[in-house]
């Protein structure tokens, strides 16, 4: 136990924790969306995220920036991030839709049991990760430094860097956009209807197949966004980065109440904070233990997560 580290680093830990939590939250939303509609742990979602992260890397490569390039000026930096966000989101979204078509849709047509979906997802996860491994020679790839490291403002030991601020703001923005999309639009109504009762929704004229594809697409878009910020924050990517983030994000989704969009956000941020504080208190190697113990204890008292499961039932 190291309380000194915790107290001294508290402001810093809070910002890093929130930034990391934002990434968890973005990926967790993908799990939660699919779970809410299909009651399926989309095990391969972590690889969708990983593809997004590589898409961003390649985009920057094409635009002439690799890990050895100098830092661009602010205008260029924002352009780079914006282009990468769009490309990565679309790429991940595309991968997610293909994944749904190849690995899940045939199963749905046959009304396969939930376990078959899970194994198919695991198989898809192997295929995606290892295929990327073969293409990239299993090498770790460095990410160009894009945003300046100098803190935006610092007051009494509390600093916040441009990257942390951007991550947090974009994650929140995307989250609210999604919330609005699901709550207010026609497509969102379709999603909620299928989540509540797929058969009735189908009888009412909702195209279930299209709604499911849409849900995968949305999850993929968010995972792509997460991939960009993961790159910027962690400074590297690899064919197997998905696994750990996936587990964490799934935990975050469960923590907040799987199937619940706001729950994913709360769960993600909370998990990020718990990890940061826990690492300072017990040492970095215990991070995952702390995360899981917190999850375990929480589930003891709130068996359906912090905010409960409700993609269909509540407002959002």
């Amino acid at each position, binding site marked *: 136990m190291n309380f000194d580290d915790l107290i001294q680093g508290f402001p810093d830990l809070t910002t890093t924790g929130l930034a990391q939590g934002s990434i968890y939250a973005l990926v967790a939303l993908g799990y939660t969306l699919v779970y809410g509609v299909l009651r399926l742990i989309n095990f391969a979602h972590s690889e969708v995220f990983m593809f997004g992260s590589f898409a961003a890397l390649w985009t920057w490569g094409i635009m002439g920036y690799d890990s050895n390039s100098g830092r661009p000026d602010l205008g260029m930096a924002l352009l780079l991030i914006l282009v990468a966000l769009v490309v990565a989101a679309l790429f991940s979204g595309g991968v997610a839709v293909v994944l749904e078509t190849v690995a899940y849709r045939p199963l749905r047509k046959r009304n396969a049991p939930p376990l078959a979906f899970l194994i198919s997802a695991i*198989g898809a996860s192997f295929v995606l990760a290892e295929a990327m491994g073969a293409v990239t020679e299993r090498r770790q790839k460095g990410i160009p430094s894009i945003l300046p490291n100098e803190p935006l403002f610092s007051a009494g030991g509390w600093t916040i860097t441009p990257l942390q601020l951007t991550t947090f703001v974009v994650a929140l923005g995307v989250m609210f956009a999604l919330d609005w999309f699901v709550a207010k639009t026609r497509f969102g109504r379709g999603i909620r209807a299928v989540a509540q009762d797929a058969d009735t929704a189908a009888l009412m004229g909702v195209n279930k197949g299209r709604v499911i594809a849409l849900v995968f697409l949305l999850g993929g878009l968010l995972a792509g966004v997460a991939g960009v910020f993961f790159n910027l924050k962690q400074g590297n990517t690899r064919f197997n980065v998905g696994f750990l983030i996936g587990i964490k994000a799934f935990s975050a989704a469960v923590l907040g109440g799987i199937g619940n969009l706001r729950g994913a956000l709360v769960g993600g941020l909370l998990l990020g904070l718990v990890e940061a504080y826990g690492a300072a208190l017990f040492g970095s190697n215990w991070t995952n233990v702390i995360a899981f113990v917190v*999850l375990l204890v929480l589930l003891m008292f709130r068996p359906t997560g912090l905010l409960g499961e409700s993609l269909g039932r509540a407002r959002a």
Partner: protein
Amino acid sequence: MTTDTIKKQRRGLHLGNRFRALPKSARIAALIAFVVLLYVLPVKGFYENLGLPIPAGDGYLPLYTTRSDMANVLFQCGYYILLALGLNVVLGYAGLLDLGFFGFFAVGAYTVALLTSPDSKLITEYNWLESPWPWLVTVPIAVALAMLSGVLLGWPTLRLRGDYLAIVTLGFAEIIRIVAKNQDWILNGDRGIPSVAHPPGTWSDGSPIFGIIDWSPYYWLVLTVIILVIFLIRNLANSRVGRAWVAIREDEDAAELMGVSTFKFKLWAFAIGAAIGGLSGSLWAGQANFVNSATFSLENSILVLAAVVLGGAGSIGGAILGGFLVIYVPEWLRSVGDVFGWPDSVEVFGVHIDVSPTSLRFVIFGALLIVVMIYRPQGLWPNRRRAAELKDRQKEVAPVE
């Protein structure tokens, strides 16, 4: 169930039915012949007598793993089959999704390693033991400890349902791994515990039966254990306990209402599954010589899960087939590469892509998982009752795609 489905099901399982239609004596004879075949699989002379010389190195013999020692691969299959049998009790019978099953394997393996190695910290640092124990004595302890850890994990968590249970069990396996990884503790982390004892016994010439190079004895041992475990599980499944599990799997609330103490029986399933997992771990440690934290990655738990569902959850034969395939297929894929003139790497847009089967074996394996789930969602060798249930499900599919 309509007669139509029954007919369909008959057609689907005609091989099995034809087998069942044989007289009992013939069935038993066939079974014994099959078991004998299993025992001779790693013996090289067997293949030579069949006129199938085993090629060295790059050669190829259909379905033989030339790049990895056959007896060794079979032993690995063996302990995975045990794991799959254990998880089958938890998942297939009681319907509890356990994503961290390998944790129990770790408990079993570490118990054996700690008690039998002369380099274990129990002896060198803590002085709890005077001298290392023999392997045989530690196996029951390992099984008991695994069972205990199953109960300890199950007690607080079994009240959770479905996917919540999955994430909690996953967390449990991860916690065990991280604790094992810590250098300064008793398990010695990545440095591990060397010189773990082997099972007892010597050949007539005084050399140990369970040596280092020849793996066949380990395979025979694990095969024997598997057969014993099968009898145990079959009896359990046909007992009151087994019926309670099926009731819980089908509808937990209904089972509870009918007076089945669901919590108690779920805990039983957990404990028995964990004990089998621990047994598998202790057998593995008896062979491995060296136990460290690197063995217990989360991917292994996933692989065991894939084994059970691939084979067919709820069916003993399925668990065995699945456990065999998840190890055997990737290992076998290593051997098929050069045979078909498959290139080792191709160049696309100036990027070298390693396409050798060794490198792509998990891509192929993953694709196989998907294909099998699409065409046989009930698994390759399903439990008959479950297969019928699933046939019904398929008929119910809503035509609104």
